[in-house]
């Protein structure tokens, strides 16, 4: 019964993962792809990678992107989950349905729509600002190297929020009302109840989100491709974009691309190890 799965795993997961290591240690560009011979170059690709200023910039951009988006995702997810948990408020029930919407939107479609929203000449945001008189002249949303990475982060957060909200909401629904009623009787304000009861009980789900969302943020690709292509300058070159550009656009250096992808995989591997340990500890605890 496991044969089809094992076959697919070998073909699509295990083999490429090992093959990536092989590629990273060999010189593989278009020339070698055509001839079918890949000369062994040892760690040359890895060294090339870590002396490439662009790769180091990509890593630091990725870190900024991940910190910004993961923080925003978790804070917004808790806020919105608390909001849609108010089943006596009828507008909350509408939000609860609509929150799923971004999950269905193809990331690349989302990215392209935001190119219109952000556009300098007649983009949607600038139209709103100009027609309401909030701004005198249009704003270059994606043109400022200091803020472009955050501007790219917003559509990404918009797209990934449903998952985060649903997880927090599921955790909220699993909570007993008794604590809240006891606290309310003792005269605790809503604010105090949040800090003393809700937040501590949400800790496990926050940890899960922290790791899952970081693993996803460090490989962001679609939004970069749609919105900035790494620009302005190198302000939004992120790690996945680096692997893609080096491999599939000139200079078509698949060896270097594989090495950079592997560096990324190591980072994510460490994250997932932490995740697995946390899950097992939680399983033992219950």
């Amino acid at each position, binding site marked *: 019964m496991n044969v089809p799965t094992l076959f697919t795993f070998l073909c699509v997961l295990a083999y490429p993962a090992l093959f990536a290591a*092989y590629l990273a240690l060999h010189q*593989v560009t278009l020339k070698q792809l055509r001839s079918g011979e890949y000369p062994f170059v040892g760690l040359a690709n890895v060294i090339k990678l870590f002396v490439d200023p662009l790769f180091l910039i990509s890593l630091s951009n990725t870190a900024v992107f991940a910190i910004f988006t993961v923080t925003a995702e978790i804070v917004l997810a808790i806020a919105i989950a608390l909001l849609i948990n108010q089943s006596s408020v009828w507008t909350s029930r509408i939000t609860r349905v609509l929150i799923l919407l971004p999950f269905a939107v193809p990331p690349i479609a989302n990215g*392209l729509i935001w190119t219109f929203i952000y556009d300098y000449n007649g983009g949607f945001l600038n139209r709103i600002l100009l027609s309401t008189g909030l701004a005198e002249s249009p704003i270059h949303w994606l043109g400022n190297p200091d803020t472009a990475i955050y501007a790219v982060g917003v559509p990404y957060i918009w797209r990934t929020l449903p998952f985060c909200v*649903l997880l927090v909401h*599921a955790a909220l629904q699993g909570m007993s009302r008794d604590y809240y009623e006891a606290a309310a009787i003792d005269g605790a304000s809503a604010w105090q109840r949040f800090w003393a009861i809700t937040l501590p009980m949400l800790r496990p789900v926050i940890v899960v989100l922290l790791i899952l969302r970081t693993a996803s943020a460090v490989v962001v*690709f679609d939004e970069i491709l749609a919105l900035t292509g790494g620009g302005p300058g190198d302000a939004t070159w992120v790690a996945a974009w680096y*692997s893609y550009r080096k491999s599939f656009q000139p200079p078509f250096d698949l060896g270097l691309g594989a090495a950079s992808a592997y560096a990324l995989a190591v980072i994510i591997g460490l994250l997932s190890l932490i995740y697995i340990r946390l899950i097992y500890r939680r399983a033992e605890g219950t």
Partner: protein
Amino acid sequence: MRLSPLAKAVLHILNVIVIALLLLPIGAAIIASLQSEVMLRGDLRSVIPRDVTWDNYKILFAGDESREGTIYSGIAYLPDAIRRFGTALVNSSIIAVAVTLLTLTFGSLTAYSVARLRLRWLGWFMGLNVFARFVPIVVLIIPLYVAFRQLGLVNSLPGVIIAQTGFLLPFGILILVPYFASIPTEIEEAARIDGASRFTTFMRISLPLSVPILISLGAIVFIASWNDLLVPLILNTKPDLMTVPVVLVSLIGDNAVFFGLLCACSLIAMLPTVALVMLLQRYVVEGLTAGAVKA
């Protein structure tokens, strides 16, 4: 706990803000898709258009003859990929349906055996599964491209189907194992005593009991496959094999950006998945939360 009128009012306002933000990109896209390029470029300030046209949508489906519509007066050039939009819709549908069926079949077979047969290496298998969930596609796509090139699987729909199934299977197995494990073994044992084989028991008893989770998983896998850009973008370069996201990508970076057309394409691209999510709301929520919590 009763809410005071003031608290309720605040909550209503917060909800309106959240709903507005959720609908902002969709609303912007609808507005842009109903305007001609001439209109969009002629007036850079107003949010609501004074004139509405369906020409962007007509161009997408009318093929070559109506490409000189009213919206592009003075612009002769149109992105070539637009002509592939119909084919891309068909390709995307074939791929997404195939990937969904394969993931459900392989996934439930494996998950059932993991849940029922207590073999020692299965613990490792599940650990690897969790690990595989984290390996980003960007990392695997480069060696996969080289390997598929040698196997002759690039530039073919089966190549994309196999790759996406492989990437989505770990997630599917992770969701299905706890579900199968929660089905009481007594029912199955009764059937076994009556002479049913393990496979018959699986087909006749466990699978029908698992329909809700299979719907959840199916919906999520379909959406993931439909929305996926990287795999078809890299494995397929032939225009005839483009999927919807790949066509969308090819609309950027050309000489001119046609926002109206681009937004019309994006809206049609999200139509099947949005419909699916709205129809199967409860199942999608169930599947998404199950995947992360019960790992």
